[in-house]
């Protein structure tokens, strides 16, 4: 996707939009009903993601954190979870921090996971940004992309079979639409009319691979045709449009009318992850061109228009999160890694004989220092 095409996106008429780059409601657009309080909470969450992303990447660069993935510019897409109830389920990919915070993950839990420490809710088992929170019905993230798609459908099939009106939502990047798992998941959902909402974050890039090398289809949303479900394309940097489209899809699923595919058109402003260097493969003019479409700024503009924003308020939020992050960061670094015994837990419900033997053996050995611990 080149800078030139960025402009083009704006004019495409199948792209659902509510506000323009300044946050002004586009003439003729219908605005989803969102209370002032909720608008504040949306702004708060998006800002928080931005702050925590920035802080985490900085400490990663300092060598204090093993790995990190930002989602700068994509924060609005996370809030596709807006219409979900607590008893609905989410199968995220690795780039939807905002969805976790919206559902209730605390900064403390978030940081403990990043550090894989003693208090990590997932016991230090996975790399940073691979959260899991069964108390929030947010399912364990997997690195292999796309595997969550048929799983989310299975959960939705289970919801349907159980006679509930729950909904499952799953997130993934546009690159992930090329996997076999995408296809089989979408197809199962179409056939079973599972109450599942699929959110593609089309951020233009899969590591170094641009969308034109990912598909020859006109859009990612158009892939819905092959599964007999609606496919909707929405400006993923327009939080109001994102919520409007998500509202419709979730309501449809809840009414028993089946799945929906949503393509959020957005942009990965920075590198793929802390391991990436986009300057090798991407023209720096491209992220710049997306500057004016920044989703946080657009929401800010909208709030200003409704007199719901002040500089002071933003500063308060910032300070509050920065303090909280500093506090829990310090703790997260101090907690230390999980006890060595826990290495063998949760492989099975109970320890079989061979793991008992291996555990005894490991405990009989000298402890190995973690070469990555910096405290």
């Amino acid at each position, binding site marked *: 996707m080149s800078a030139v095409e960025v402009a083009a996106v704006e004019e495409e008429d199948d792209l659902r939009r509510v506000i323009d780059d300044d946050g002004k409601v586009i003439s003729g657009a219908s605005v989803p009903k969102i209370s002032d309080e909720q608008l504040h909470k949306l702004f708060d969450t998006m800002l928080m993601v931005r702050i925590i992303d920035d802080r985490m990447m900085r400490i990663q660069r300092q060598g204090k954190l093993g790995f990190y993935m930002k989602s700068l510019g994509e924060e609005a897409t996370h809030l596709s979870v807006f219409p979900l109830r607590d008893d609905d389920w989410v199968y995220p990919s690795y780039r939807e921090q905002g969805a976790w915070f919206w559902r209730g993950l605390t900064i403390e839990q978030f940081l403990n996971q990043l550090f894989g420490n003693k208090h990590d809710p997932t016991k230090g*088992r996975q790399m940073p940004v691979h959260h899991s929170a069964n108390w929030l019905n947010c399912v*364990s993230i*997997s690195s292999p992309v796309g595997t969550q798609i048929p799983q989310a459908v299975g959960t939705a099939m289970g919801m349907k079979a159980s006679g509930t009106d729950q909904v499952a939502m799953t997130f993934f990047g546009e690159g992930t639409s090329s996997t076999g798992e995408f296809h*089989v998941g979408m197809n*199962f959902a179409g056939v079973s009319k599972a109450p599942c909402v699929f959110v593609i974050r089309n951020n233009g890039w899969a590591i170094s691979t641009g969308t034109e090398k990912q598909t020859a289809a006109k859009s990612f949303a158009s892939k819905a045709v092959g599964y007999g479900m609606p496919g909707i394309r929405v400006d993923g940097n327009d939080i109001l449009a994102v919520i409007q489209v998500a509202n419709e899809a979730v309501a449809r699923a809840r009414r028993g009318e089946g799945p929906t595919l949503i393509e959020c058109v957005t942009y990965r402003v920075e590198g793929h992850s802390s391991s990436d260097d986009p300057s090798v493969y991407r023209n720096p003019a491209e992220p710049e061109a997306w500057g004016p479409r920044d989703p946080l700024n657009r929401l800010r503009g909208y709030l200003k228009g409704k007199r719901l924003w002040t500089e002071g308020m933003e500063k308060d939020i910032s300070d509050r999160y920065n303090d909280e992050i500093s506090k829990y960061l310090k703790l997260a670094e101090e907690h230390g890694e999980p006890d060595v015994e826990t290495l063998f837990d949760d492989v099975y*419900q109970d320890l079989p004989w061979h793991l008992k033997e291996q555990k005894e053996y490991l405990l009989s050995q000298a402890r190995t220092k973690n070469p990555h611990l910096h405290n």
Partner: protein
Amino acid sequence: MPTMNIIQAVNNALRIQMAAEPKSIILGEDVGKFGGVFRATSGLYDEFGEERVIDTPLAEAGIIGAAIGMAVYGMRPIPEIQFSDFIFPAFDQIVNELAKFRYRSGGQYPCPVVIRTPVGGGIRGGHYHSQSPEALFIHTPGLKVVIPSNPYDAKGMLLASLRQDDPVLFMEPKKIYRASRGEVPEEDYTVELGKAKVVREGNQVTLIAYGAMVSVIEEAAAKAAEIGISCEVIDLRTLMPFDIETITESVSKNGRAVMVHEAPQTCGFGAEVCTSLYERCMAHLEAPIQRVCGFDTPFPYSLEHEYLPNADRVLGAIRKTLEW
């Protein structure tokens, strides 16, 4: 007590479980109205309805992926993979997802999926209707692997698998689906996982196998007995975790052993059994443990009868351990 074959025993176990546990869902290709290509789910669609016995689209990754999503949500899915040769499109879901779900979520998300799939050769199925890929799953921490050799165990171990919370690959030896018959109680019972069974006692050579090869080692033991050699016959039944105690005890006692399986020899499960036994019984072993396994070729069609281990070859191996 009624007599059943393995298909009937599996069908019976599924019917009992579907009735007892409303969260159970059977899903797979052709498992519904047709009742499965081997008819293992016959009648269940009519009895429990299409919401609980689901004919899926043709996609193993979808079958297992959906089963995982159901299990994580709290259902008790029982997916069928039509032939274990067709399990590989779902390999990522099984190995990277199902096996690791509980662990990677720090115990938050157990994933009790019991995958049923026919395994092994002997039906003239060639490359793709004959494979025995159990070793791949045994090497994958987080999975349990079960292969029964008779109707009684098939029913009891399937019910046991359905009543514990770890993922299980339940492999059904298709060669003896109908050939293996025996008395099977109508009622609900379980056979404990992780326990081998000493099928025949003997004090010279221990023969170890599982699934369809159990009858082969039994036949070999009978032939050996005719020429005055006493063999102990062990049916492993559960491959992960396997019953190290029973085999260690037997091999320590006899000092000689033969390990038999259909899967290709190299890096097969036999290698693990042998190595584990050497580690524990070295001092008692009078000869190297003999392996009688499938050859390291794709499973052939016309020469299947030359490919599969048979009683004569096992007998040859028995002699070899004695003459060593």
